[in-house]
């Protein structure tokens, strides 16, 4: 009795979870494996279209002979690079049609024209012509003929499915793709974006955790950048920062803070001298990081605020009795209480910033020193249309992330042990 109940429970569970599991498997897990597969292949964007045999049917009447008709099929291989094997052709005709010139490759039975065209090399083209006559002498309706479409079939290699593998993509990624530069840019972007958003998150959470008029309103406002669509925000920023007539540059010029406009998103380096030291700041990258911080600190804010509100009030009351200053309270009570949240946040944000594509793509398109690894995936795959390379870069991203997670958890584990 109990056994059958457990069995039905199991069955129900599988029925309930199956649709979701199947969908997630086919759209998320399967592509990940497909990605590994593609990254070991030399595939270009044009290769992924499956080659098709095509025929354009042109019906021509023959002058002075209304009972006869000429039909021209413009045959071609749609692919410029791949062969199609065993092309077969089929077309139907009205019941009173007789063929006049039968090609040796074809047969005409039951008003059905069948042809075996053999193998078509890439770019193959042929004008295939047949002449028909009606056997009862009736006139031919051209429209009717045109509406019937010929069927073509053929076999072709799907480049994705064959077993030719190569390590070329990975060699190219690591040695020819300015890999170190790419990695450094991605690291700066990820690290400073993450740290910045967490710092601002702590500041704002600390701020909203105090009582003041309009606090709930403030909480909503702080989340605006996070919930609004990235496209709208990125273009707004672009207009604000535009060097020609952007608001920021116009304002700075108006107040005579700068003399010439600064191209914040289009200039790779800017020279800054502080205390006599000259150094180059990566300007466009810094701007992009600013945008990232602006857009994602609300998330850190939300997490940290939730944690702050859970800190027992007694801790602060006790500190007040001991005569602690606000800064002492912050560093000795608040900060230790939120370290756990911060370490989770750091990991989450690090992973997501490492993969962030849209923000940089919309702001700079990867120009002026903002080319990160995800941008490179897009550039390789779709701009240079080397799908294999793009895949290889994305595999490198995954490997780097797994390494990061491994070391991060090891480090975290150690610290927990020490405590």
């Amino acid at each position: 009795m109990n056994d059958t109940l457990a069995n039905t429970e199991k069955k129900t569970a599988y029925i309930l979870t199956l649709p979701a599991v199947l969908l997630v498997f086919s759209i998320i897990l399967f592509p990940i494996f497909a990605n590994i597969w593609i990254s070991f292949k030399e595939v270009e964007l044009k290769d992924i279209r499956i080659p098709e045999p095509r025929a354009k049917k042109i019906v021509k009447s023959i002058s002075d002979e209304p009972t006869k008709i000429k039909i021209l099929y413009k045959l071609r291989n749609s692919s410029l690079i791949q062969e199609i094997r065993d092309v077969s052709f089929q077309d139907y005709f009205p019941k009173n049609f007789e063929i006049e010139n039968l090609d040796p490759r074809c047969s005409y039975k039951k008003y059905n024209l069948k042809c075996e065209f053999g193998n078509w090399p890439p770019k193959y083209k042929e004008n295939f012509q047949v002449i028909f006559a009606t056997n009862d002498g009736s006139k031919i309706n051209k429209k009717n003929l045109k509406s019937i479409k010929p069927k073509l079939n053929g076999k072709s290699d799907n480049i994705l499915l064959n077993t030719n593998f190569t390590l070329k993509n990975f060699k190219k990624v690591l040695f020819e793709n300015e890999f170190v530069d790419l990695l450094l840019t991605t690291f700066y972007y990820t690290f400073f974006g993450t740290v910045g958003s967490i710092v601002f998150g702590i500041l704002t959470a600390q701020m909203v955790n105090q009582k003041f008029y309009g606090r709930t309103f403030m909480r909503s406002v702080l989340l605006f950048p996070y919930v609004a669509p990235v496209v709208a925000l990125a273009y707004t920023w672009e207009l604000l920062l535009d060097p020609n007539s952007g608001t920021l540059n116009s304002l700075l010029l108006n107040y005579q803070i700068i003399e010439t406009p600064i191209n914040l998103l289009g200039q790779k380096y800017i020279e800054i001298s502080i205390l006599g030291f000259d150094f180059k700041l990566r300007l466009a990258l810094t701007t992009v990081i600013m945008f990232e911080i602006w857009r994602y600190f609300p998330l850190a804010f939300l997490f940290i605020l939730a944690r702050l509100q859970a800190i027992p009030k007694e801790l602060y009351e006790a500190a007040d009795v001991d005569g602690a200053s606000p800064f002492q309270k912050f560093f000795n009570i608040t900060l230790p209480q939120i370290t756990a949240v911060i370490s989770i946040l750091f990991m989450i944000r690090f992973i997501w910033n490492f993969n962030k594509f849209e923000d940089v793509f919309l702001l700079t398109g990867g120009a002026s020193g903002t080319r990160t690894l995800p941008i490179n995936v897009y550039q390789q795959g779709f701009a240079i249309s080397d799908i294999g390379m793009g895949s290889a870069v994305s595999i490198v991203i995954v490997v780097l992330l797994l390494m990061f997670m491994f070391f991060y958890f090891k480090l975290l584990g150690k610290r927990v042990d020490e405590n």
Partner: protein
Amino acid sequence: MRTKNTILFSLISTFFLIFLISIWKILATLQGLSINSFNIEITFIFGFLISLAHLGIGDRIKSIYKSIIFSSIFVFCDGYLVQKLPIWYNVGVFLILYFFTNKISKYTFIGLKEEHSTQVILFDFLTLFGILFFSFVILFPFYMMLVTSFKTQIALLVNPLDFSINFGQDIKDLFKSYFVIFKSYKFGKYIVISTIVSVGTVIITLLFAIPAAYAVARLNFFGKTFLSTSILIIYMFPAIVLVIPLYTIFSQLGLRNSIEGLLIVYTATTLPVAIYMLQGYFKSIPKELEEAAILDKLSWFGIITKIIIPLSIPAISSVALYVFMIAWNEFLFSLMFLDNPNSFTLSRAIQYLSGDAETPRQYLMAGSVVVTLPVLFIFVYFEKYLVSGLTAGSVKG
């Protein structure tokens, strides 16, 4: 000690005042006023003197009169001796000064003698400063987005700092950019597509996620722990890794440029977090209710539709809103999968619009307003639901 605290207090409050006045000046400049300098020196001197005078006078005058007197003096000096500016600007300055003097009115000489008083003051002012600073930094781009959409290209070329809206003009002229993007750029169609995709994603996600979450929350089966742990790991997987294989597969299946293709991808990427959020809530529903239902011989379908769903409306709404927001804002997949202008979503359409360098910026901003407003409206209106969704699902983004 007292002198040091007094000076520190005056300095901190003065910097706060400078910040307030500067923001006001920026906003006024953007209304087309020609203000070419922040006049920080004057503000500094007056702010410092007002703070000192406030401490000196103490309780001898009622604080409301004190505020009005200080504000009037400042406005008089700043507004009429230094700059010739319209009356609304000076009213603004007066209100800022009134606000400022009210804020400092709670600090007295006696208070300054207390322990940590400078730190307390610094903390207070930092909080105030933070509130204003962050409100400004966050709202300013949204504000600029909105005002730019009401301007014309020529007006912006003549004076790139004049964002004042002329409400006197014809409605048609005022909303010209919006008329143009709806008429010439088919934004009406894109709104429909975006809505279908987002609402569709919500419905399919819920259809798949509710049964799965129920199974994970309640039933015992082989692979349950594996399933529930892998849900979040899958969710952490970067979208950029999926893009190339999905692009190739969708190309070969002919699913690119189709709403179905987007629906499948959006549903798959939001399912894990939807299941995670829902199963957490389902676990909190008392089991006794279902046991009674089993005695009544209700099937699992009956249990889910008659007991679980009615009881978890808050959780389901927060999942629905969160999924809607993700689908509405999504850009990466729509960029990859859509290249036919007949099947664009709003985000993709705006990006397409910006690809043409000739597109006037006010059209771009009008489009941005159109795509942003629904999300912000939903967010403000349903904030309570969405915030819980954001905290639970915020690994995404």
